[in-house]
């Protein structure tokens, strides 16, 4: 789950990290009054920042500096309700529903600091760079030596000496080094306490008087850990999420929309990916990834069909079930029952394998619904691709 900048900053502020004053606004009027407060408090300029989950907002015009409350209101009016296109969104962009009005900072130096998981080492890693404000992957490509790292070992977490070491390796000294090291410690505690998968401050600003301020911040939270963070779950903003993926998640289905024409319904994530690959190898294009999981009850299969068929371009469906503990005959019954409640007007290729596959296939054959039955995964993919191209009867 992704958090917005303003949410992430509130979490950091709670943990003692300095962040600029700011106000969330959903209307130009709110933006004006938020900006006015900041100007009254002495800000020379305020930033108007689109609150979207995608990165690269600056490049897409999602961050503007205003010199008056009126100007801030104008920027906010232009952003709110617009579709913001950034290097990390598709060409259609994402809708801006909230802006954050924030006091400008006195920037002497900009750093990058983040914690994320190092999968190879199996532990979190702090990644820092003296090139703040830039995308870290860009820095990794153009100037990898500018990036320094320290691992948070199991049981030990980030130790103070590691944070200090990072600060010195970034070329800092004195108060700025101590401030950055302290911020890294706080960020690592936040990462841990919030079950984050990413905690990023970019840029982390050194001010003219060697203060340290988080000018942008981003937390991604581990979905598996949300059960123990109701306070974070309440921060979820689903406006940028794919509606079908959300609907699938509500039914404990794992669904990802793709661009192709062959709708897939598979049990197991690996087999679902493998099925997509096989469709591709057969010359077709999968319309989605869809894992119905281990249970595959009638209700679940029906939901899966419903979501699958909402994919606009689906012109054939491939059901690929490898029965393990799940019995194929039960799945077959589920499919038939599901089809009584969901209108499916495209060819359906079914491949059942594993436990009670034969019985399952017989059930399908004996039903009113017309299925194209396949034996192997390869055959199933070929038939589905052909069906999607309108050659089902060929």
């Amino acid at each position, binding site marked *: 789950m992704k958090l917005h900048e303003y949410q992430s900053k509130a979490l950091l502020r709670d943990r003692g990290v300095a962040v600029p004053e700011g106000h969330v606004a959903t209307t130009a009027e709110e933006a004006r009054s938020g900006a006015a407060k900041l100007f009254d408090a002495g800000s020379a300029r305020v930033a108007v920042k689109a609150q979207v989950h995608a990165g690269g907002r600056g490049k897409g015009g999602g961050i503007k500096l205003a010199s008056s409350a009126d100007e801030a209101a104008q920027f906010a009016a232009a952003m709110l309700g617009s579709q913001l296109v950034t290097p990390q969104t598709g060409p259609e962009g994402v809708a801006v529903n909230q802006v954050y009005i924030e006091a400008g900072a006195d920037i002497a130096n900009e750093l990058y600091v983040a914690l994320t998981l190092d*999968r190879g080492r*199996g532990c979190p890693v702090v990644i820092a760079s003296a090139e703040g404000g830039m995308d870290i992957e860009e820095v990794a490509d153009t100037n990898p030596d500018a990036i320094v790292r320290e691992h948070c070992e199991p049981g030990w977490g980030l130790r103070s000496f590691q944070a200090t070491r990072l600060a010195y390796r970034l070329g800092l000294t004195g108060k700025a080094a101590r401030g950055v090291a302290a911020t890294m410690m706080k960020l690592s505690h936040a990462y841990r306490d919030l079950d984050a998968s990413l905690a990023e401050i970019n840029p982390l600003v050194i001010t003219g008087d060697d203060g340290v301020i988080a000018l942008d911040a981003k937390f991604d939270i581990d979905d598996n850990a949300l059960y123990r963070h109701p306070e974070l779950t309440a921060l979820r903003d689903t406006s940028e999420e794919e509606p079908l993926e959300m609907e699938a998640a509500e039914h404990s289905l794992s669904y990802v929309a793709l661009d192709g024409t062959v709708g897939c319904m598979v049990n*197991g*994530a690996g087999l679902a990916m*493998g099925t*997509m*690959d096989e469709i591709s190898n057969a010359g077709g294009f999968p319309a989605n990834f869809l894992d119905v999981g281990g249970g595959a009850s009638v209700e679940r299969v029906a939901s899966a069909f419903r979501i699958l068929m909402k994919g606009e371009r689906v012109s054939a469906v491939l059901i690929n079930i490898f029965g*393990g503990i799940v019995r194929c005959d039960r799945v077959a019954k589920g499919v038939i029952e599901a089809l009584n409640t969901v209108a499916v007007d495209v060819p359906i290729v079914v491949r059942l394998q*594993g436990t009670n596959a034969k019985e399952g296939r017989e059930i399908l054959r004996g039903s009113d619904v017309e299925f194209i039955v396949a034996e192997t995964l390869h055959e199933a993919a070929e038939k589905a691709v052909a069906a999607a191209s309108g050659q089902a009867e060929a």
Partner: protein
Amino acid sequence: MSIFVDSDSRIVVQGITGSEGAFHTQQCREYGTNVVAGVTPGKGGLLFQDEVPIFNTVIEAVEATGADVSMIFVPPPFAADAVMEAADAGVRLAICITEGIPTLDMVDVVGYCNARGTRLIGPNCPGVITPGQCKVGIMPGFVHKEGRVGVISRSGTLTYEAVDQLTRVGLGQTTCIGIGGDPVIGTTHRDCLERFAEDEKTEAVVMIGEIGGSGEEEAAAYIADDYPLPVIAFIAGQTAPPGKRMGHAGAIIAGGKGTAAEKMKALREAGAHVVESPSEIGAKALEVLGP
């Protein structure tokens, strides 16, 4: 021969009285697995299926029955603690089936297991089977056949698919291991490759990877360094888009890294027999090994 488990393995099941735990314990027992104990706090003193003693704690189970392998079906909020309990009780192998454990819990768990010398397999995995001897997991036993191919995979049903193909072409398996689909796992492809290399009976390894992480690349580097067995490899997710989690928490192309193409390239360059399609696994293995 085999790796990790065999007919001498003595299994304790943590979460034996839960619905999943009970069902799969029964399945494992029917397969012939030697389930010697179960653990459910508060149910100590009862019997599972009138035969398997249940204990409140793993240490009691280990002390009373000599269990050396734990199969874990404990729900996600308690699973990390359960694995640590198994490690602390001294089981040599903990196989965690549970899906949905928070990643940072697993960071701790893997560190804890390493510090205690307990091997962890999983989490979020189908388990381990040595056909004809011992099934510790949720895989359908009947598709497997005793033989000479080792199988390593990050997924469940795709493994069954691969095993089924092997069995159909007449190639049995020494041991099949589902290492799990999470970002942090106890045992990697590489770890399994090492163990298979030491197993006399294993003549080839089928390795099924998927997008995300760098476990396949690390395995490739290991294979490239004179790995003694032929490796047949498939990487799932060639058609997966970046930034999208493909079911498994660990199956995601993040920051442009972890693509199937990169992994396939690394494995190919390391000398593995990489197939483009999951349908070709069995045929390729037969081609490499001969009938």
